C-alpha cells in the first residue's frame, strides 16, 4: 500500500487513511530528528512493509508540515553528506497528540465492531 502517492491514494487507500501520513511522520519525528530517506525507510520497516511512501513523494509532505510550523528543518553536513534534517516543533507535538487521540478513538471503535462480528 502506497501512502505517499496521493494520485494513487484515491484508488488504493480508503478515505479513513487520510491523515495517516501526517500521523506517521510526526510520530517518527517525535523520537528524533530525521531526513527524508530515513523517514521513508523507518515507515517501511516499522510497519512491516504494510505502509510505504512513494520514493521521493515525502518531501512535499514535509514542506507542508514545515509551512504549518509542525516541523522545522535544517540543512547540515553529517558524515560528508549534506541533508535536510527535520524535527518536531511544539505545535507539531500538539498536533501529534490530537491525531493520536483521534486514531485511538477510530481503531478502538473498529476493533469493538470487528470483535462483535467474530463473537
Amino acid at each position, binding site marked *: 500500500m502506497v501512502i505517499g502517492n496521493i494520485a494513487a491514494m484515491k484508488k488504493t487507500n480508503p478515505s479513513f487513511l487520510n491523515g495517516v501520513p501526517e500521523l506517521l511522520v510526526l510520530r517518527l519525528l517525535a523520537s528524533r530528528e530525521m531526513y527524508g530517506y530515513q523517514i521513508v525507510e523507518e515507515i517501511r520497516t516499522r510497519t512491516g512493509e504494510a505502509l510505504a511512501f512513494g520514493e*521521493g*513523494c515525502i518531501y512535499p509532505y514535509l514542506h507542508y508540515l514545515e509551512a504549518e510550523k509542525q516541523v522545522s528543518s535544517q540543512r547540515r553536513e553529517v558524515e560528508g553528506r549534506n541533508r*535536510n534534517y527535520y524535527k518536531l516543533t511544539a505545535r507539531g507535538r500538539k498536533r501529534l497528540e490530537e491525531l493520536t487521540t483521534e486514531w485511538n478513538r477510530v481503531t478502538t471503535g473498529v476493533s469493538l465492531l470487528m470483535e462483535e462480528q467474530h463473537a
Partner: protein
Amino acid sequence: MPDFIKPLRRRLVELGCPLAQVRRLVREVADHHEDLKQAALSEELSGADAEARANAQLGDPLVLAEHLMVVLRRSSWWGRHFVIGFGVLPILAVPVLWTLFLMLGLSLEFALGFGWDWKKLHVAADNPVAFHHLVLALHGADYVAIALVTLLFCWLARRSAVSLKWMVTSCAICSLYALITWGRIEPHSFTLGFTISLSMTQQWIRAAIPLLIASAIYILRRRTTQQFHEKVAG
C-alpha cells in the same frame, strides 16, 4: 547529478511549481537518490547497478514530478479547492475587494491631499480645476484597486502552484467586473455602481487592466522559466 534530475526539474517548472520549491525539491530528491544508491552499494551491487536500482525505485521522473505537484497543491486550501478559489470565490469577492481597495486608495489620497479636512474637499469640489484633479485622483485609485484585486488572485494562484488556466480564469472574472462596475465623482457626491452599457471607453480601459496583468505574468513566467533552464544547463 543523476540523469533523472534534469527531466524532473523541467517537468516541475512546466507544471508551474514555484522556482524556490523546484530548487528545494530537486535537491532533496537528489539526496534521496544518493541514499538509495548508497543502500544498493552496501548490498555489494556495482556502481552502475546501484544507479539503475535507485533510478528504478524513484521511477519515471515525469510521473514523480506529477506526484510531487499533486501533493504540493493539496498542501494548501487554494490548491485543494482551486475551482472554488479561482472560479467561484472571485465572482463573490472581486466587487467587495475592489470597493475596499478603492475606498482605501481614496482615503489615502484624501489624507495626503486634504489632511482629512472635509471643508477643503468641498472648496476643491467647487473649483473646476481642483475638481478635475479630484476626478483624476478617483481614476488613479480605481485603476490601482482593479490591479490590486487581480494581483491578489494571481499571487494566490502562483503560491498554491495551480495551473495557469486558473490564474487566467480569476483574471477574466476581474476583467468582467472591471467592465461593468464604475465609480463616479460629481461636485459634493461620489457613487459606485454597476452598468451593462459598454459604450464608455473608460470601462474598456478598466477591463484591459486585469488582462494586461495576466499577459505580463505569463510572459514573465515564460522568461523566468527559460532563464532557469539556461542557468541550470549552463
